[in-house]
């Protein structure tokens, strides 16, 4: 049992959507709560059971009412759980916090909220553990953290308790004082924040709140509490708000109370763990930033300790303090020191790589006292970072790739900034470094070093594309590298693409491609392997996209490749396809006129002699196009349309063959933004009431055994068929007006049904009547269910799409079938089955159950109701109005029998069923039909 829960909970937390396919959130929640209530269950398992509620409260409690019920349930479990299970009780508090705060409608607080808040405050104040069990203290700590989180989510919630929290912190000598201090700091920050909106009254209120003087009736709960909910501003950091927009609270020079609270919190900050300390200091920085009457120098005493720290979060807080207070707290010496410190830390042998990289990021965003550039450019170097200072961070080949690139980027910026002042040796160093990376890759580096080389090359080009002598040399070196390792072709093409895109004015990419074209065409074909050749063709294809580049060399190479004497490799489809790819680009090249003849020769040769029929065919097509169409027409025919191109051309093979952009979009399944169509139930028709053959003409023995024997065939009466109309949704999008080859896929949301078959619909046009879709369900248990529906279809332009349809809901009555008795039986036979079943059900206990449902109905209303809802299932004669007998069959083998009669006070529905799990559904159904 216990182990089963471990697996289920981890399955749920790993992928709730997959887990809930097999059950529903309601059922799972109910199961969790039942197990939590169970006194026999192991408490270690119970702790585990709370994790779904902590991680996915909104999924398990999708409405406020469910949230409310769950919270009440958990509160009662908390009240009943023995105090010794501290761990469980603590986790329970966490779960309650999550459930109560994450209700889907954030603006309304659940009714259990105040009770839970009281409970937390009571636990937080309960110092009876002082001399006793230390474990109990951890419950108090958790309660404090829950309060902290609630104050974060509902700023101002605890504003009236500010003085209480101060007192608790003051008294506490165990480690817990940290928890109180955290809470007090946060509440203080929120109070100050919310009071900044109060003009003059703010100062008085603050004084009152700090002094616990409630007689100065500031209705915090109304004013502050209301600020909670959807407003996100109190949640964002004050320091991160743009300069000059920090809200301020004008207290006048006299704010002794606040000052004394701040100093005492600061004095004790040393006693906190570094993580908590950093947060406290940050919150206090926010407070001081908002209250101009408090000078930032209040932090001065802590500063030296913080500047020397080895803790990343503490030094970071110091930097954030600097960005908030600049020269009102940090002198220019401090600034210089801090920057040097960051440089040291960015390459300190004892720190981890992520920490060092973080410090390097801090250098790039160093909060200067007097920033020169006020622009909000992403990365700006501090003025104090001289090339000399930065030289400690020069990249070397021993660096890991992230460090290497970060350093390369930083130093590039430094040398770019230094410009003329610097004698060029720095730049030379960076280039040499790039060369040594290249050497390493040349002698067989791993994939990571290859990627690093190309990233470093991009960085270099990005910053120094104007320094021709290096850039030209880099092109040459890359060409040499390519000849040795042709598999780097995609990297080189990628580099060319990116530099072209990011540096549209730089001719570097063009130069690289031209150089590559040259080295490829100059390589003797006898030295080219089959493997090299396919990469060469890729590079040439890319080079052929450059309109300004002469393509003669490419054509010479191509004609060399297809000459039989040089063709030492097999002339297969792939190779041919590669060649055609280049040709296709050449067909639309601006200089087509000058290369017409050699291109035609290549195509003609391919069409006549190539070893693969398919390639020959396509070469012939290209040849014909080239020789018969005018240039303009040719361009139109072959123009590759970007995304969402028009009409049938998309699907022309010429496009497919040659990896035009069309290919990717044709082979990709696109996802629709919204639902395009949906399934609407056709007006639900009840099965026809059969015209029953009258008694005497019956053939065959009508008894239960014969009836049951039919089920020997597993397929017998096991299916329900539902009919739907497939229609467009209201959202109009002309692209989707005519759809073809629609394949509907249904997936189950529970395991009560067998997997469903996909359905195909040939087409769907907006203006035509909607097609009817028949969906066959095969229940394992005949319960109501929902189905997810998705579809794949094709649009007119040949693209394939995937879309999601609104869910289908299958209600209980849709699964009803009339008694599947042999067709030869008449009413008597059916009545016999009814009687037999009724008797069995009344006698047996196991799965069977009987029940009674009563309601007030006039006799006529009853007849109408039976007529409307039960006619096909009626076993008794409809004329006999004193008692109706109804038999509902639910596949695969369940029966619900109803004897409906008007008694003196009410209509009685006597229910008998051989599957007791159906009772709640029957009850719901009867309630529904009798209410209307």
């Amino acid at each position, binding site marked *: 049992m216990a182990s089963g829960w471990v697996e289920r909970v981890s399955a749920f937390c790993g992928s709730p959507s997959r887990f809930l396919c097999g059950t529903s959130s309601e059922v799972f929640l109910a199961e969790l709560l039942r197990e939590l209530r169970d006194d026999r269950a192991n408490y270690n398992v119970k702790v585990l059971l709370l994790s779904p509620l902590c991680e996915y409260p909104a999924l398990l409690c999708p409405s406020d009412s469910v949230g409310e019920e769950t919270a009440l349930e958990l509160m009662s479990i908390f009240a009943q759980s023995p105090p010794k299970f501290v761990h469980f009780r603590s986790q329970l508090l966490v779960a309650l916090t999550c459930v109560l705060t*994450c209700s889907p409608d954030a603006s309304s607080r659940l009714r259990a909220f105040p009770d839970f808040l009281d409970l937390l405050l009571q636990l937080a104040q309960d110092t009876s553990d002082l001399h006793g069990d230390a474990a109990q203290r951890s419950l108090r700590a958790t309660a404090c*953290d829950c309060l902290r989180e609630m104050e974060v989510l509902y700023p101002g919630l605890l504003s009236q308790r500010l003085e209480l929290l101060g007192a608790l912190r003051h008294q506490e000598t165990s480690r817990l004082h940290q928890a109180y201090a955290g809470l007090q700091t946060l509440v203080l920050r929120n109070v100050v924040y919310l009071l900044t909106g109060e003009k003059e009254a703010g100062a008085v209120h603050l004084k009152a709140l700090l002094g616990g003087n409630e007689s100065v009736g500031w209705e915090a709960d109304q004013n502050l509490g209301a600020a909670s909910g959807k407003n996100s501003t109190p*949640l964002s950091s004050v320091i991160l708000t743009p300069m000059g927009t920090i809200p301020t609270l004008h207290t006048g020079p006299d704010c002794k109370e606040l000052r004394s609270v701040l100093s005492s919190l600061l004095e004790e900050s040393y*006693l906190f763990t570094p*993580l908590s300390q*950093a947060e406290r200091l940050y919150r206090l920085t926010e407070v001081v930033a908002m209250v101009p009457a408090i000078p930032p120098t209040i932090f001065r005493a802590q500063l030296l300790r913080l500047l020397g720290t080895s803790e990343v979060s503490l030094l970071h807080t110091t930097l954030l303090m600097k960005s908030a207070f600049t020269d009102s707290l940090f002198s220019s010496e401090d600034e210089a020191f801090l920057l040097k410190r960051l440089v040291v830390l960015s390459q300190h042998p*004892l720190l981890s790589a992520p920490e060092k*990289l973080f410090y390097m990021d801090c250098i*790039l965003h160093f909060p200067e006292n007097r920033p020169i550039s006020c622009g909000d450019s992403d990365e700006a170097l501090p003025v104090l970072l001289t090339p000399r200072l930065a030289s400690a961070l020069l990249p070397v080949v021993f660096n890991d790739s992230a460090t290497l690139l970060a350093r390369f980027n930083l130093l590039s910026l430094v040398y770019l900034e230094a410009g003329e002042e610097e004698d060029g040796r720095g730049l030379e160093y960076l280039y040499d470094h790039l060369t040594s990376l290249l050497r390493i890759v040349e002698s067989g580096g791993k994939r990571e070093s290859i990627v690093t080389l190309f990233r470093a090359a991009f960085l270099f080009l990005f910053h120094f594309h104007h320094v021709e002598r290096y850039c030209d040399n880099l092109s040459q070196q890359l060409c040499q590298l390519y000849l040795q390792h042709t598999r780097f072709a995609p990297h080189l093409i990628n580099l060319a693409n990116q530099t072209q895109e990011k540096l549209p004015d730089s001719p570097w990419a063009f130069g690289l491609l031209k150089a590559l074209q040259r080295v490829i065409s100059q390589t003797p074909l006898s030295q080219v392997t089959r493997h090299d050749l396919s990469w060469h063709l890729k590079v040439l294809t890319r080079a052929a996209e450059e309109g300004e580049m002469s393509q003669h060399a490419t054509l010479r190479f191509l004609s060399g490749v297809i000459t039989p004497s040089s063709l030492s490799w097999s002339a297969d489809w792939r190779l041919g396809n590669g060649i055609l790819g280049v040709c296709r680009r050449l067909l639309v090249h601006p200089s087509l006129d000058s290369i017409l003849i050699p291109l035609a020769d290549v195509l003609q040769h391919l069409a006549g002699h190539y070893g693969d029929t398919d390639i020959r065919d396509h070469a012939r097509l290209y040849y014909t196009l080239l020789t018969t169409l005018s240039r303009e027409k040719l361009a139109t025919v072959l123009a590759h349309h970007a995304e969402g191109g028009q009409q049938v051309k998309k699907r022309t093979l010429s496009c497919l063959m040659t990896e035009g952009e069309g290919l990717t979009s044709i082979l990709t399944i696109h996802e629709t933004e919204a639902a395009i169509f949906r399934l609407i139930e056709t007006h639900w028709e009840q099965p026809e009431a059969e015209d029953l053959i009258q008694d005497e003409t019956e053939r065959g023995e009508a008894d239960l055994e014969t009836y049951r024997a039919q089920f020997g065939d597993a397929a017998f009466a096991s299916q329900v068929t539902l009919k739907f109309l497939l229609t467009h949704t209201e959202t109009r999008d002309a692209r989707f007006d005519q759809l073809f080859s629609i394949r509907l896929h249904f997936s189950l949301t529970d395991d009560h049904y067998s997997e469903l078959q996909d359905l195909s619909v040939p087409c769907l046009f907006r203006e035509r009547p909607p097609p009817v879709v028949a969906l066959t369900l095969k229940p394992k248990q005949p319960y109501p269910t929902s189905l997810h529906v998705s579809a794949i279809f094709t649009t007119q332009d040949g693209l394939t799409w995937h879309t999601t349809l609104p869910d289908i809901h299958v209600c209980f009555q849709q699964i009803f079938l009339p008694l599947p008795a042999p067709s030869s039986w008449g009413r008597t036979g059916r009545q016999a089955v009814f009687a037999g079943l009724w008797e069995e059900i009344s006698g047996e206990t196991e799965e069977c159950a009987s029940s009674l449902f009563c309601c007030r109905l006039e006799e006529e209303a009853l007849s109408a109701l039976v007529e409307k809802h039960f006619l096909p299932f009626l076993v008794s004669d409809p004329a006999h109005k004193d008692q109706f007998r109804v038999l509902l069959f639910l596949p695969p083998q369940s029966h619900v029998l109803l004897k409906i009669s008007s008694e003196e006070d009410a209509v009685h529905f006597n229910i008998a069923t051989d599957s007791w799990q159906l009772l709640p559904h029957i009850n719901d159904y009867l309630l529904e039909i009798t209410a209307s």
Partner: protein
Amino acid sequence: MSLRALWIISPEKGEHASIRFSRRFATVELRAKRLAGSSYVAVPEDDCFLQLLLTELGLSGSKQPFVVKRDDCLYRPRSPAVELHVTGAGKGTLWPVLAISQAPLILACLPLVDASPEQRPPLSSLLSVSQGLSFLAGLQTFLLAPGSKQDGEGLVSRLALLPSVLLQVCPLGTPLELPLSGTLATPSAPTSAGIQKQPAWRTGLHRGRAVVNVSVAETVRSMQYGNRSRQDLWDVYGTVACKCEVEGVLPNVTVTLSLPPNGSPLQDILVHPCVTSLDSSVLTASSVDSCDGSAFSGPYKFPFSPPLEPFILCSYTSQVPVPPILGSYQLKEEESQLHVSVVLKLHESVKNSFEYCEAHLPFYNRDQMGVVDVKVSSGQLDVSKEKNLLVWALGQKFPKSREVTMEGKILFSGTAPGPSEPLCTGLTAYIKLYFKVPDTTLSGCSVDQHSVQVYSSAKPRIVTSRELHSKDYRIWNSTGTAPVSSGQMIL
């Protein structure tokens, strides 16, 4: 300052990676949703997250040589924070995902961005990022702490402890402290209700004999080229580790580091957060500054109140005038064999008493070694099993002359090719030295037993120690080209 979610991943062989533990913090997620408004991107489910992260870290699809998503040359800082592009239903960019990896685990978390969603703030303006980094590093230490059990089992049992550990250190997504490695912090005997407040980082009280243990460990790194145009490099850094078993809620201890009369000042001093106060002069010397002779050179006083567990009180770097061992390495290619000549000299200021001292001579991008005809003046020479490495064990002492030599020829006539290494092609080769010298430091830094002050009633036993060891101590072949290992020295 809070985390939205946390993951612990085993990246075993890329394709078989799995999530060993994950935790989402629902209330922080709610805050993220409110803060980001319409640009909110939900945390994807585990499988989806795993795929995205592995691709971004370049750990997936090892069979494909080039995947644009993974190998694009466009530079984006990918560490310590990566961005993940979630596709499908809740599409958008998830940022900043922090990931740190140390075999056999990758730890990742998603800190909350507490700023308005209009513009992405720089990483360095988010306190939650440094908090996240510390927290992940703390978790890593906790999970991978050397345990008594076999490595695999230790990890499994620690992972099993994680839910209860998180309940203590980060119940609702805001990290309060780091998990203590070793045992779960079960608070010891209740503390006396005195006036002094117990620091939150001190988990209990020590009872029993007072012992203070201070050990200074220095590491020396070096790159020697034996080349006039290329300056040899070496640097030294040290850590002062303490274990203090002293009574009291907030005991006071002071450790003083001192240098010999003409020692060069300790630089880049970083201190543990338990140090109560610092003199500004202690922090002045920096390795990136021009050294000036008048700099403060001690004694360095560190008053602190110790935690219960062992900790690093402080660390420093130092510039010493000479490397402890100066080497020269020369290779000459003679037909199919290599002529090897090595000289190692121990500097006279260094104590000639090693715990161990070994020189390793690896040979890459060649066949296996066949005939090894090499003589050494001292110590013992071995050929590794793989036949691509010479191991020269120098033992505990250099000879009186403080100089040892190796001379001879190696024929690479083995049947199989040896390992390859893209850095060491042609005559580019190195010797790597491994040594440890007890009871000495290169900087001369020491802690005198009598300088350790403990303000407590019982007189504590004080133990101090020193040691020096090498790391990345390489001597490059002077006849080949050696890679640059510090740009600073070149410029």
